[in-house]
């Protein structure tokens, strides 16, 4: 397939995931800040901008909502990642199913039209998440499982892995001991999956779950495994491409479930860099080189 297509599929997957994950994070962070007043508002706000690597410019929750919902030009925000998803889809419109483009387009226009009320963001964020689910549903139903799907899957799982790692490293449980652990789980909608396996709900257990759970699709382990599978399908013989992510996967597979919290933080930091390195390798292996026109004879 065309490198340009591959690249757009990859980034479409990443941004789609980012948009959904950021919406959930914001939704649950808002719930938390409304209900819990044990830390001052500015600190509670900066906590999320730090997690999302946005500038710490918001002074209160209302500004935070506006900042994270964001603008089209900043791909780390909800609107920015939504717009970037659609932009990538536009360049490969010929190669994606019509229903998919339609679902994406309606999510995009609804997202633009629905600026959330900064004091009352819940409704808008929830419908945002639902629209993104429609896109994912169309993909699941009708997207052909060829290389294009592997690239999309790859982008999606690396982005997921990266976000879960950041969530683990964020320190919710230290700052909100009461509701922090549950908020981490709700931020990836994993609360009921978690409690099926274990109680009580402590920060350490929650982090252990987010890192190593075998069946939850957003755990670092699961994402690493999915990314590895896609990479092997794309280029089985070149193991330098997937060596790093496979090592992370196998380390998690055999790691100590009772690892200390500092070990958990180290894994999270490592996962983030594995995601970045793998992304860079994929880029140099499959995608167009930077500066798209090559002069040569």
């Amino acid at each position, binding site marked *: 397939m065309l490198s340009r297509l591959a*690249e*757009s599929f*990859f*980034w479409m997957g*990443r*941004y789609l995931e*980012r948009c959904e994950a950021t919406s959930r994070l914001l939704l649950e962070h*808002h*719930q938390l800040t*409304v*209900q*819990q*007043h*044990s*830390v*001052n508002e500015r*600190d*509670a706000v900066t*906590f999320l901008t730090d997690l*999302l*690597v946005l500038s710490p410019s918001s002074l209160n929750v209302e500004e935070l909502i506006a900042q994270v919902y964001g603008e089209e*030009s900043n*791909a*780390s925000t909800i609107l920015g990642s939504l717009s*970037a998803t659609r*932009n*990538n889809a*536009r*360049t490969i419109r010929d190669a994606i199913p019509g229903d998919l483009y339609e679902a994406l387009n309606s999510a995009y226009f609804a997202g633009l039209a629905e600026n959330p009320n900064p*004091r*009352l963001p*819940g*409704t808008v964020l929830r419908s945002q998440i639902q629209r993104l689910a429609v896109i994912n549903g169309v993909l699941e139903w009708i997207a052909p499982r060829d290389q294009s799907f592997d690239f999309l899957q790859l982008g999606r799982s690396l982005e997921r892995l*990266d976000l879960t790692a*950041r969530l683990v*490293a964020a*320190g919710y449980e*230290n*700052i909100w001991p*009461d*509701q922090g652990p*549950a908020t981490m789980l709700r931020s990836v909608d994993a609360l*009921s999956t*978690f*409690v*099926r*396996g*274990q*109680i*009580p*709900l402590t920060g350490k257990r929650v982090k252990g779950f987010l890192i190593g759970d075998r069946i939850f699709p957003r755990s670092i382990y699961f994402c690493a495994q999915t990314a590895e599978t896609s990479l092997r399908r794309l280029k089985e013989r070149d193991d330098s491409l997937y060596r790093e992510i496979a090592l992370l996967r196998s380390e998690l597979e055999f790691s100590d479930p009772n690892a200390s919290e*500092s070990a958990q*933080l*180290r894994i999270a*930091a490592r996962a*983030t*860099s594995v995601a*970045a390195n793998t*992304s860079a390798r994929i880029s140099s292996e499959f995608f*167009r080189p930077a500066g798209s026109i090559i002069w040569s004879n």
Partner: protein
Amino acid sequence: MKSAFDEFFPFDTVDTNLLPLLTNLLNLGSAGLIERGKIRDTYLSTQGITFTLSGKERPLSVDLIPRVINAHEWSTISSGVKQRIRALEAFLADVYGAHTIINEGIIPRQLVTSSEHFLREAHGIQPANGVRIHVSGIDLIRDEAGTLRVLEDNLRCPSGVSYVLENRRTLAHVVPEVFGNFQVRSVEDYPEHLLQALRAAAPDGITEPIVAILTPGIHNSAHFEHAFLARRMGIELVEGRDLFCKGGFLYMRTTSGPQPVHVLYRRIDDEYLDPMQFKPDSILGVPGILNVARAGNVTLANAVGNGVADDKAIYPYVPRIIKYYLGEEPILPNVETYDLQIPDVLNHVQKNLAEMVIKPVAGSGGYGLVIGPSATAEQLKEISQVIAENPRGWIAQPVVNLSTCPTVLSDGEVAPRHIDLRPFAVNDGKEIWVLPGGLTRVALVEGSLVVNSSQGGGSKDTWVLQPKSEKVALAKETKNENPDETHELALTIPARESGPEVLTNRRLQQQEEQQQQGGEL
């Protein structure tokens, strides 16, 4: 009738602590409140936070104004509830055992034995960790003088706790403004406490008990709650047909064959539980389960036969029960109650019916209730006859004008409506834990004193405030044992990646546009 106590405006003053809450809400204006009401209704129905009434699923409406209880008052409620549960546990152990309280004449034997819920089938069943009342809901009301009183005990299958948890999230979603700077105690960990108590009740020798919830099925009014608790505790929600007894043990049918069940949190009534012992035509229960419980191989929570302790005719004796077993004065007083089996009392009640509430002993959910002041002469005449014919079947209480709380009406106006409170307690055998909050039910019809959701009542989020404390200044470094390490980790977390700027490359965009100029539409 004496005027009701108001939770926000006690004795015609205003509770200044609560003023910011009301101001923030009233600032929305009635149009704003109507809009928020719609957001709430949509949220409740899409989330499926419902109860089923006459076969129809409907949302249990939560009012936009919470009910607030301060830390000091909560500590009284909490210790009062604990005291009551301790005494009622002792009472149940006694009436299904040695009968000392009866033999000493503190409680008339006939009163106990005539109770519909006194089950001889439960005699001699020894609960594993001594607990019969694993979960309870004690209904409290506040009278005209501002005193909290116990209206009734629910020791069988008290429902409503799921709404306590969901109401908090709903309010934060719909009216975040009202939370202001209030430090409200979290209710999130109820499922964890409940699961711990259920596990602690496992039969002797079982270290990794399998716990399940037994529901009558999706048509039951509380099915949402059953599913909610199963999901939040991570345990199976089973119906009678999923279970069977064999060789003195209880099993559930699974894809990998029969799996034992050690603790069953059953949300179906005693008489439907075991067709071999009770209603033979019940298809909701599990034949033989009571024998398994008697053999000590499964713990039923709550225990069979608890209904004798929350029988409305036993209720007037609870203060005596507390004194008898604990040697303590009741922390939470009862509402004055007339025992109609005493002829003089019956006579007195019949003469003053217009100031009384007459309740069926066996009833629940507000069915069959007659409220004197709002009843017609015909109704009063009828009930007068009914209680004379069956004095054991009814109790009478003077009408208590329940306290009121400002409530948002459907037209966006705010007006006082009568409320009650159901705190929930969980007993794990070592400690009784009272959920800091509870279900506040509100009678939405003006002047109505009937708060039951089956009678058109709604609910309120119930806030228990933290004892006053300073905010924690957030210093991330102090949270980690090793500040250097935190610093180092923070440095290694890179910015988020982004892809090539597909459409925002200005030069590329301009050239692409120019290309098209020749053939514009």
